[in-house]
């Protein structure tokens, strides 16, 4: 069983979605994350093992390479696509409670900002890290973030912004969440941000890449 879980992890890391997928070229014609995950479950692998030993490992590897600039956005997107193909086989087990997420992560691009590629990458990597991700989309008001926090007790929140003019809306959002749910961890990210800015607005964490956000959440969840 270890072997097939390793294969799934490799497929996810390399973005091999299924047998029909031409990418990556050296794995052409071979089973991908989709078929191998179905096979692992059919052969009796525990869904939690598939999550821990295959999906999280594969996405962790590609996430680290991304933060080291060894791979780029397209590689991460292909990996996420493979992860999604594998995840669909685990979904029934999450719904039945047989497999459990590490927690819930609310993510969105703050009010006034419509950029979402960075936010989507963070959502994909964190979902691949075993978290239930609630994506609120773009142009999200502080009030909508707060409502999602109230609806998902114990969740963590990620705020994204790409414009210097919308960074200021992060401060308002962090303040509203902390005022109403002070224990909620708030992560911020986006090209114009810095650690200094994150600390100034009272966010709990800042990361320049998705892997850093995942590592913070993993440490937080213990």
């Amino acid at each position, binding site marked *: 069983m270890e072997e097939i879980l390793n294969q799934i992890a490799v497929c996810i890391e390399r973005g091999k979605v299924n047998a029909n997928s*031409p*990418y*990556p*070229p050296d794995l052409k014609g071979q089973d991908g994350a989709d078929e191998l995950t179905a096979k692992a479950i059919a052969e009796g692998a525990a869904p939690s093992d598939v999550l821990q030993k295959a999906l999280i490992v594969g996405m962790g590897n590609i996430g680290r390479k991304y933060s080291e*600039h060894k791979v*780029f*956005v*397209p*590689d991460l*997107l*292909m990996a*996420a*696509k493979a992860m999604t193909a594998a995840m669909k086989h685990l979904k029934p087990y999450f719904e039945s409670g047989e497999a459990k997420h590490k927690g819930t992560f609310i993510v969105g691009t703050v009010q*006034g*900002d*419509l*950029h*979402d*590629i960075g936010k*989507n990458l963070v959502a994909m990597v964190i979902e691949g890290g075993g978290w239930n991700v609630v994506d609120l989309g773009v142009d999200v008001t502080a009030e909508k973030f707060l409502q999602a926090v109230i609806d998902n007790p114990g969740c963590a929140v990620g705020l994204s912004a790409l*414009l*210097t*003019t*919308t960074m200021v*809306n992060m401060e308002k959002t962090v303040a509203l969440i902390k005022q109403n749910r002070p224990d909620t961890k708030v992560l911020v990210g986006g*090209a*114009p*941000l*810095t650690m200094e800015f994150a600390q100034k607005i009272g966010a709990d964490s800042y990361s*320049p*890449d998705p892997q850093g956000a995942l590592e913070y959440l993993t440490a937080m969840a213990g």
Partner: protein
Amino acid sequence: MNERLYGNTIDDVLQGMAVLYESAIPFVDLGIEPFRVEIAMGYAPGAMPEPFHELVDTAVAEAAQRLSPRCGFLVLPSSEVEVGETGLRLRGEWFETGDTIAGLLESASAGAIFAATAGPELDEWARGYFNDGDPMTGFVVDALGSVTAERSLDWLEERLLDLAGGIGWSVTHQYGPGYCGWHLSEQHKLFGLLPPRFLGIALSESALMRPVKSVSGFIGLGPNAERKPHGCAICTMEHCFRRSPAAAV
């Protein structure tokens, strides 16, 4: 080509008059080679793996049918442009660009407010892929949109260089709000000096341009205008993906 020079000829700038220029740009004239999209996607030239080449080639071919890039500028005469130590005054309106940009513009005695856009079709085209669960192709189209806007700006600069050359002037590099200390919110004032909905571009309250793949800013002009170092060399955005080792190649 739908090119228009409103009101005056460029020679009239020497007489203290402003000149407004607008043009559609045939996509093929932008000369967008796939390697430019490759770089916009974060790869060093030639380093992009399969199957992305096919996606990029297909998107570039399709763009010729789908996109309608445009560009335009308002040339302001010397009497309406003043470069200070930390900013510039255009038609009496002060722009706090910061001392870096102001220093790079000090050789200008006149200038042009410009905008260029990949066109409104791009946003919808890319969004369609993201909504259909194909973020990979959506990302390729998004990167192509960035390149289209940048190349439209290059096209505009060449046109402006031609016109300025006709009256014995040269040009500086271009600089815009959101760049190197010039706060993005000043985009509102900049667009306030252009005709309403110039090139079809709208600004949100947060100064985000729609279509998203649009660029705007200011280019210095004058008999002694010179191009000084530009781009990543003077930008302070520490974590921009364009700073990645591969992209820097």
